[in-house]
């Protein structure tokens, strides 16, 4: 039997916790909240306990909806309902985080922020229906590379591909869009339709040949680029492969599914939603790549009591690959260990 064992309960936020970001190389995570602050939590190397080491609370005037570490772990980006995105730098000596830049331009609430695999690009999205791509210039400046306005509604989340310069965005218009760059600008290379309500969360698998998405329609969907080039109809007009839905898990949660995390360490998928549940899903071995099968192996109810679970994230470190962080409307962040007895 597989299950999630509670490892730690991180309290300190004074409003609902919206999102979680694990540090790419250290046993450390950042969480952001309606209390307009980011808290950095760290594992004590001595006794293995988790505690808050920093509170970043002087950059945003409204809710911080999303946070993300750069791939080298040096920078933290935070997206806020105050229409700005802040970029923080960690001082190597003191470990303190200092606001390096604020990126303005979105008309209203910024909903999500994501760093590209190389750390050279940053993507943000907003209720203004746009996705912005920023380039890191020099040590601390950012230039807007593109403003993409093809979503018809509020864009809920942006997520870069784990290795390529390819961006996925999820929206209230029920679609997911894939963005690529050509000689001069970014363009929408594919629109993934199938969800029948808001797409709230997306995540790639380790190699980036699959994308998982969760929605208000209570399904978890899996998408793969169709690389069978014999089928010309599957190609976008720039010869980009079309992404097709290869599996749908219906009624995974009883209410809206808000978040999905695909572990880059062990390949397990975790979801969380408004039904207060956290689920762990595993891909069955030896299934056809174009018709994969999945199994729900953990179903944890009331992970945050009677509160919605807003975010779920697997730890990316090999050593702690079984650690799962969740955040809820109860202002609490919980760390769980996946165990298979």
């Amino acid at each position, binding site marked *: 039997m597989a299950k999630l064992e509670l490892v730690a309960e991180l309290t300190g936020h004074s409003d609902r916790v919206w999102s979680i970001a694990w540090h790419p190389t250290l046993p450390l995570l950042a969480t952001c909240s309606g209390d307009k602050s980011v808290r950095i939590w760290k594992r004590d190397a001595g006794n293995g306990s988790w505690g808050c080491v920093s509170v970043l609370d002087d950059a945003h005037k409204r809710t911080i909806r999303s946070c993300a570490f750069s791939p080298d772990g040096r920078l933290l980006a935070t997206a806020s309902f105050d229409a700005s995105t802040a970029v923080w730098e960690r001082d190597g000596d003191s470990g303190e985080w200092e606001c390096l830049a604020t*990126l303005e331009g979105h008309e209203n609430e910024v909903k999500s922020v994501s760093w590209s695999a190389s750390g050279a690009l940053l993507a943000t999205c907003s209720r203004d229906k746009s996705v912005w791509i920023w380039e890191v210039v020099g040590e601390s*400046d950012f*230039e807007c*590379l593109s*403003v993409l306005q093809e979503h018809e509604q509020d864009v809920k989340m942006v997520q870069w591909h784990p290795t390529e310069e390819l961006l996925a965005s999820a929206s209230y218009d029920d679609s997911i869009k894939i963005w690529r760059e050509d000689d001069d600008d970014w363009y929408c290379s594919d629109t993934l339709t199938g969800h029948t309500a808001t797409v709230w969360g997306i995540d790639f698998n380790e190699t980036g040949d699959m994308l998982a998405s969760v929605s208000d329609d209570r399904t978890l969907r899996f998408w793969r680029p169709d690389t069978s080039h014999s089928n010309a109809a599957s190609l976008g*007009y720039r010869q980009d492969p079309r992404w097709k839905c290869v599996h749908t898990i219906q009624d995974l949660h009883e209410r809206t599914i808000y978040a999905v995390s695909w572990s880059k360490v062990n390949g397990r998928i975790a979801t969380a939603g408004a039904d207060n549940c956290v689920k762990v899903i595993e891909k069955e071995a030896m299934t056809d790549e174009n018709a994969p099968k999945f199994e729900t192996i953990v179903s944890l109810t009331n992970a945050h009591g009677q509160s919605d679970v807003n975010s779920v994230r697997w730890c990316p470190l090999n050593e702690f690959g079984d650690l799962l962080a969740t955040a809820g409307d109860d202002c609490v962040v919980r760390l769980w260990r996946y165990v298979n007895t």
Partner: protein
Amino acid sequence: MGFSGAVVLTDLNDFITPSQACIKPVEIKKTATEGTQIRVDDTGGYYEVRQDGGETKLETASISLNDCLACSGCITSAESVLITMQSQKELYEILTANKLAIAQGRPNDVRTIVVSVAPQSRASIAAKYNLTPLQVHMRLLWFFKQFLGVHYVFDTAFSRDFSLLESAKEFVRRYRQHRATGGVLPMLASACPGWICYAEKTHDYILPFIDTTKSPQQVMGSLVKDYLGSKIGLTPDKVYHVSVMPCYDKKLEASRQDFYNEIYSTRDVDCVITTGEVEKMFGEQGLGIGHVPEAEVESLFTKAVASHDTGIPMLAGTEGSSSGGYLSYIFRYAARVLYGINLTLEDVELGRNGVQVRAGRNIDFKEYTLTLPNDPTPVLKFAAAYGFRNIQNLVRKLKPTSSLRRRPTATSDYHFVEVMACPSGCINGGGQLKPDDDLASASRDWVARTEEAYRWVANKAGVQFPEANSAIGVLYQEWLGGEETEKARVMLHTGYRAVEKTNVSGLAVKW
């Protein structure tokens, strides 16, 4: 909709949403106090039902372009509003009213109709129908004057010469002041209404940087309503002025309060129709642009020269970019006036004689600098920045309180920036004709083709510099009483105001 009976609404001030995209709360005059109900009848009419049973029909909410200008909800405007408020239908109505007035023997009610055509619109039609812009101009002359009964057709490349001359003078003034006491630089071009709207609604700190010179459309507006009107003895309201533009946002520009004459309740430009709407007009009249007759070019308020071969008037070319050529003209003017360096068009275009041209991060950003011999620091540093992404980087760099907390901001050290909201500039305006095949690759070729059509005029007839346009010199004297007069300031310049952030109704916003 399945509304029936009385729908009870309390404290609701916007029960009709004009369009899904528009989030401006519409205020409806209500006498409502407590306990009133709203009844919807079978035809969709809304009635306020008082407690005593009496009913009052409620007005239908509508959004005007003025509302758009005053609202910070959208960057420019909901497209549906732009298309419905000013269109060819308005022009048809005036034409019909004129015919009626003549038929009924009311000559005093006939309004003089003027159509001013932008050179980018001519280029777009030329590119699509395999014509030259000169042919397009002659066909539009035939269509508007002989077919529809419009009285005058003018050319905004003509009024643009005023815009260029005034912009260049304003630039030199700002530059000298900057050198002396630290004036406001860079000067940012003001001809693009999308950019102006955006700056006014979201970046008020940018407004002092914007060139106060009116756009060619609005200079033509002053010229038509003030000068032409008085010449032919008509008050401004007796002249109906239409402009043909490559851009929907020009409709917003024409609606600005600054260009409204309160005494005569009339605008300098009464109606703006886009290139696409002109094409539609031909269709509505059962005509094909490719097959209509051509009328001879007239020289009144038209940038025209006599052909070398035939002596017949033809369109004269303009310098620089197809977005008005502000950068090129001001660059050369400043080099001459400030540093005594005479640059040719090719010097600026190709980067010679002290001019360096540097490609930017993308095709819509280009930098032009002028350095003097023996001094590596450029004395002129100009840029062309088109499209939203380049505008973003520009406004970020001009932001007064550094967005970088720790390190100093990389401030913009440009002296002038030709800013346009559309990628590729006005030639690719939102109102231009579209290729039949709507692929991105095709659209790039399409823009190049339109650009080529635009260039045809200068290649054919040569460039006529604004100083060489003798009619402009005459108008400065006759109309404005000379340069730098109060009249010249009023007729050729304008101002910008920040739009207050409105509290947008949360209920009307789609989350």
